């Protein structure tokens, strides 16, 4: 396959960036999208041009490190992570536009690499169960209903990639937030901190500059782990209950 790539190049956080056009040939449909970029980088290196910086790590669709807006969509045309997107989703001769995540709360570091540390700070604000090491009760002493445990698991599969934020016209992280609130809120262990957790996490979310949710649903449509939109309903419900409790 031969492709034309329009890639966002930006030297660092403070420099201006621009789209630059490259061509690559000899791309196999079995390559992952990132392997295609590896190939481009080898070619750039040979030509003496600095390779394109992009984030990636596990290349198994689970670490959440890879990103990229591909033709305006987070992770590209398929509902998957960029590392699991394969070139068979494109045709020879295609022009592909590759940009970093678009959101004020994810500032650009270089080229296609952005800073997602705001997600860590949201977790720090309450996205955990306060269980000290070494004092846990016997695991089976607190049964968890199977359907609730299943739902908790299904939303706990969020990989924190930030695709939901990049997809949202408001730059909201409500899907990420809702997934964590629902994961912990569905389990018996998560109940004691349930309502303080939602207040604290929403507070931090807003403080980081993420936008509000207006139920557009782009986040869930783009989520590579198919986190359902109703976690946002759960988030709002828990927040409302917390408000009624005066928290």
């Amino acid at each position, binding site marked *: 396959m031969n492709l034309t790539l329009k890639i966002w190049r930006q030297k660092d956080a403070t420099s201006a960036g621009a789209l630059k056009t490259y061509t690559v040939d000899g791309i196999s449909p079995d390559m992952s999208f990132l392997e295609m970029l590896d190939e481009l980088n080898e070619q750039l290196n040979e030509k003496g041009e600095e390779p394109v910086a992009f984030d990636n790590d596990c290349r198994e*669709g689970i670490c959440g490190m890879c990103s990229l807006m591909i033709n305006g969509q987070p992770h590209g045309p398929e509902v998957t992570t960029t590392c699991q997107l394969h070139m068979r989703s494109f045709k020879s001769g295609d022009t592909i536009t590759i940009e970093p995540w678009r959101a004020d709360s994810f500032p650009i570091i270089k080229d296609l690499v952005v800073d997602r540390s705001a997600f860590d700070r949201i977790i720090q604000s309450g996205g955990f169960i306060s*269980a000290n090491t070494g004092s846990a*009760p016997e695991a089976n002493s607190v049964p968890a209903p199977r359907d609730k445990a299943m739902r908790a698991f299904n939303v706990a599969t969020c990989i924190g990639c930030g695709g939901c934020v990049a997809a949202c016209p408001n730059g909201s992280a409500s899907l990420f937030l809702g997934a964590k609130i629902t994961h912990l809120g569905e389990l018996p262990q998560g109940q004691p901190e349930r309502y303080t957790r939602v207040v604290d996490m929403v507070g931090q979310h807003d403080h980081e500059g993420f936008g509000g949710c207006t139920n557009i649903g782009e986040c869930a449509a783009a989520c590579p782990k198919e986190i359902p939109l109703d976690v946002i309903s759960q988030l709002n419900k828990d927040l409302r209950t917390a408000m009624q409790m005066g928290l």
Partner: protein
Amino acid sequence: MAFLDGTTQTNQPPVQKSDDAAGYYTLGAPLVDPVAPTGPIADRWKNRKFENRLVNPANRRKLDIIIVGTGLAGGAAAATLGEAGYNVSTFCYQDSPRRAHSIAAQGGINAAKNYKEDGDSTHRLFYDTVKGGDYRARENNVYRLAEESANIIDQCVAQGVPFAREYGGLLDNRSFGGVQVSRTFYARGQTGQQLLIGAYQAMERQVAAGTVKQYTRHEMLEVILVDGKARGIVTRDMVTGAIDTHLADVVVLATGGYGNVFYLSTNAMGSNVTAAWRAHRKGAYMANPCYTQIHPTCIPVTGDHQSKLTLMSESLRNDGRIWVPKDPKDADKDPRDIPEEARDYFLERIYPAFGNLVPRDIASRAAKYQCDDGKGVGPLVKEVDEHGVERMVRRGVYLDFTEAISRLGEDGVREKYDNLFDMYARITGENPYETPMRIYPAVHYVMGGLWVDYHLQSSIEGLFVAGEANFSDHGANRLGASALMQGLADGYFVLPNTIREYLADGPFDKIDESHPSVVAARTEVEERINRFMTIGGTRSADSFHKELGRIMWEYCGMERTETGLKKAIGLIRDLKKAFWSDLKVLGTADTLNQSLEKAGRVIDFIELGELMCIDALNRRESCGGHFRAESQTEDGEAMRHDDEFAYVAAWEFGGEDGLPVLHKEDLIYTAIEMKQRSYK
């Protein structure tokens, strides 16, 4: 020989008769674990936890701990030590600790809970693990691991890890390769992710509490030694390029494994050996470096462009049946058109007792031999053999769910393995519900790592090593669902209890940035980076990495020979020379520069690769995933030589141009009898 505690020594220290690696190493003094406990095995860890001195809460605040790596072991240790009140600083190369490669583990985590009443116990988990590791692990460490396993599950459940449950709300289990009980706890095919998120959240809680300081996108490039003790690290901020020194009372490395030395592996792209290797060069022994686990159920290689391999959870072997066509002429037929009588379910045939659930090394080798015999399936791929001759081989065997689908229904299979099937479909473009998957072994986990004593302290005082980065628990092979167990046991329970014995002597004399040892370590790093940037050659770091990977897989992979290993050592030495004269790194050192990052890691892999080959050359026996063609039984099974090799090979750095020094730690089993493994 009987001991006072009533146990019996079941083997004698080995006397090595063969010396294949003569000329490639020098022999150092024998090594012993200076803090190894004795007494009845079931009491050793309990007693040690009591014997180790305490550090009172007011003093903990005055003690600084550096933890490098924030996966299961590092993240759990940071959470626990932070909660205990120490000042902890953590470092990871990713943008968030939540990305550590522990997250990619799929299948599960073992624990001797005996919830199924099928005869499980701490002792049985201990026994299975030592046997699975082909009697090349330390019994003290493995027993402790088995003992802590049950606590891990309690801890994780309390943190909200959503393990699979039965309808009554209690935890579910499944079985894994190499064992006959159901002791594996799991969260569908994403157990590692859920456990890691648990540890990460516990650690972030401490960040908020102010006990843990988190440095992301930081890479450790040197360890700082003062008076022989580890007192800090030198890091590079991967965003700004700033070289910084961080000082502490103790340093913990929890930096994972080095499987990426093979280039193609199931490791994350960033997984590297640099932290461990820099420590090795400063005096930390590297133990059993040639012990690599080859995982049997990976998606096969399709071509030269590939950057990594993807593992399909071993749990698939619970329901999937592995076969190849009996007749090589059927290799490119649609598998659905091959009738039952023309299929060879080779694992079930050769190993009737364990069938498709034989341990990883056995399953891997069996698949390789089928393909070597021309019975492999999938695309023809080009290979170069030991004599430099090119050949075309099919590297794949079928993993077939037809029978499981007819028994459980497609929905039943989907519920158990959904994400794995999706992943397979995405990567291969084939639907595994309709046609059997193709799998082939790939490099997965390394059992070798920095040598540690029972307290997880390396041969450098004050440098502790946890999780995959140390060598101690898995021996020559690793059973399924035991890596997550080790990471979390070390992080949550072992290290926090052993490190206090060391820290009870602290706080140590304060040092500052101007201390000559600190300045020297920092200068070393700066000069090294400068050297990478100024070679000005023609080849990318990646191209050297790929070449190293091909050498390692061909000569130090699933099957090794004396001739092959000697050849590999020569090739690697040439590659190292080429690296230092022909490397090309563009860009500058004061910004994010991924080529520069790779260069530093690749040269460390090259040096490690040479040591791996020397270790493999010395060990003229087959055990676990390490198969020396010169040492096999009449029917082609791995043959150990306990009389010669029942030792840990701990290698000391012999200087830039010197030979590595081999220290042998005898493996003496008192609570378990050494036997030849058999899964037939």
